[in-house]
């Protein structure tokens, strides 16, 4: 899905920024540009940050694969 209409930034790219440590909308904007123009995607970005804080990327790439549609290795 596309989060930032102004720059065409996707959820995948935003999630990568969050998992790399961006924990505020400002940090996400610095990392990937999402929300840096009109800022009207801020709610979605905050939702993604909150979801990541609640479900931290302790399993790294496996979690990304699960979240973004690539089955983890331990799943059939």
């Amino acid at each position: 899905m596309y989060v930032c209409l102004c720059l065409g930034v996707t959820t995948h790219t935003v999630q990568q920024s969050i998992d790399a440590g961006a924990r505020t909308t400002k940090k996400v904007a610095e990392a990937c540009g999402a929300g840096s123009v009109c800022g009207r995607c801020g709610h979605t970005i905050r939702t993604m940050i909150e979801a990541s804080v609640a479900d931290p990327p302790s399993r790294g790439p496996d979690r990304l694969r699960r979240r973004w549609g690539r089955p983890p290795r331990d799943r059939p």
Partner: protein
Amino acid sequence: MGDAAMSLVLAADYQVPDFDHWWAGLTRDVRRLPGLGAHHIVVYRSLEDPSRVFVTIGFRDRGPVDALLRSPVMFSWFDGAGVEEFPPMFVGEVVEKLDLGSPDGSAVPAATAGTVMVAAIAPVGQLEEMRDRVHAAADRIAASGVRRFWIYRAVDDQAEVMILLQIATEQQAQEWIRHPDAAAAFMSEAGEGAYPPLFVGHLVQAIEVPED
């Protein structure tokens, strides 16, 4: 697949503070949408939350997605709905339209105002495996009330899909939400992170947009 199957579809799930006002605004905006190359707009309204809508817009040509999203027309679309915060947007193309038929064997009638629909946007893992599972379970899915099963693949993530289900009754739609068929278990991923929760609603109107 025909040309329509390859055209771009944009979808969003969002809330409008005043549906009636938005509906009037939508009618005005339709006249401007041809500039984007849209050929139809389909509006669904949630059964549980009357301010929640699910909108799909089909485009004639598959132009650059970035240009489409940042178009002033797109911004005015949300402004007209009183939407301050933009929802995440699904952009994809249809890969399958399954007509599962009616219990009596007759063809499924075209969707009309009031037709019940369930929508989901979620990661699906391997799309082809999911399609195989759906095909294998087609009879079972039909028995649960699903009449049409449409699958769209996101252009930005080959493993992300939007599913639109036309379902016979509200009760069967609610049951599907609670217990989706095992072949569509991925729908339980809807609502995680940026993904909108499962949507169950009815068709308000499918609007054909005239060409320029």
